[in-house]
């Protein structure tokens, strides 16, 4: 293709490591987790994946706290990032 037009290629981290946007960090307490996967399905940033237990990808988690808010057993707590 010779012409230039606004074509973009699917890329993970297109906006960089969005984990740097985070102010509060979700911390999972596996003992309380009932694996309902609400944190997974509601994560806008695809930062929670499904292993045996939820796996949080801190490289991309923006720290919105939806996971903690939606967790039925309070297994996720939001803690201030230490920077």
């Amino acid at each position, binding site marked *: *293709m*010779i*012409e*230039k*037009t*606004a*074509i*973009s*290629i*699917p890329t993970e981290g297109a906006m960089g490591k969005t984990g740097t946007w985070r102010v509060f960090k979700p911390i999972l307490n596996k003992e309380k987790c009932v694996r309902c996967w609400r944190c997974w399905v509601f994560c806008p940033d695809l930062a929670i994946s499904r292993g045996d237990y939820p796996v949080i990808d801190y490289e991309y988690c923006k720290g919105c706290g939806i996971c903690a808010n939606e967790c039925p057993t309070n297994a996720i707590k939001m803690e201030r990032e230490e920077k």
Partner: protein
Amino acid sequence: MIVVDTGNHIAALAAKMAKPHVIAAYPITPQTTVVERLAQYVESGELNSEFIRVESEHSAMTACIGAAAVGARTFTATSSHGLLLMHEMLHWAALARLPIVMVNVNRAIGPGWNIWSDLNDSMAQRDTGWIQFYASSNQEIFDNVIQAYKIGEDERIRLPVMICYDGFILSHTSMPVEVPKQEEIDDFLNEYKSTWQLDINNPITHGNIVPPEPYLEIRYSMEKAMKEAKKVIEEVGEEFGRKFGREYRLVEEYRCDDADYVIVTMSALAAEAKIAVDRLRDKGNRIGLIKLRTYRPFPHEYLKYDKMIVIDRAFSPGLGGIIYSEMEMDGKEVYGFIAGLGGVDINYKDIEKMYEYAKKGKDGWYGIEVK
């Protein structure tokens, strides 16, 4: 085969022979019979295309963009206010580098409503990145539509192409047109191949946010293509000439060789100008004609005569006749006439008068400032 038919029907016939996958169009006077004829072709099965009966011209152009973005050859037609409504999407088609082909039947812009010829509708689209052809006869309408696909789809170009012709003067006037066989057209036009397309196996995104620097490059690439188009248009015009006996270039030079004065104009006015040149020559005047076939890209290199008379059927308020304003005038004597707006009849006799005025050093709005 000779077909005698109106400019609009000839445009529809040419579009049909180019076999677009998708046609999306909205009716507007005086383009309407293009749409009607194409709908007939599709419904009768003569043309295997999807015809989208859109709810506006804006959607007509957008539907063509959508279709072209998944790899389809497309066609649409419009006029005047319809073209103005499309304006936003004309830019979109060109920046997306989709070789959509469209005919625009030139018509004045309101208010008040005026359905007659005036080139301001399409000339106002000059900065959208569309290649623009202007036809002076129904034969040229046919030939330009066919060539438009080949030029726009050329990998060096990938720009949309607009073929313009005067409302009623050409759109509703029957003329004999030499129409090649379908196989010959098929042979001339390559199968449409897109250079980019929306494909589930290669899921690109087209048109998300582009930062300033790459945007600059995208615009520059368009300018390069437009410049390259000058070469490609002449290549394709020459090939067309070899195959069909009618050769085309960016301009048609008529009796210019020893001319003291050269008229510069386009569209139906150029047909009248040709008659005026012959008659003036008969009376011993050394005069010629440059008929602009393309307005974009603008063929500066052909407009190099010492004394030129430019006749515009469009103007830019506060500046003047549009072709006139775009001329390189250094060291040249250039006279500009604005004539025939809103369908005011201009024939060869009027053009002969303009020549007489120019010789006396006068120019301006014909019929108002000079009469």
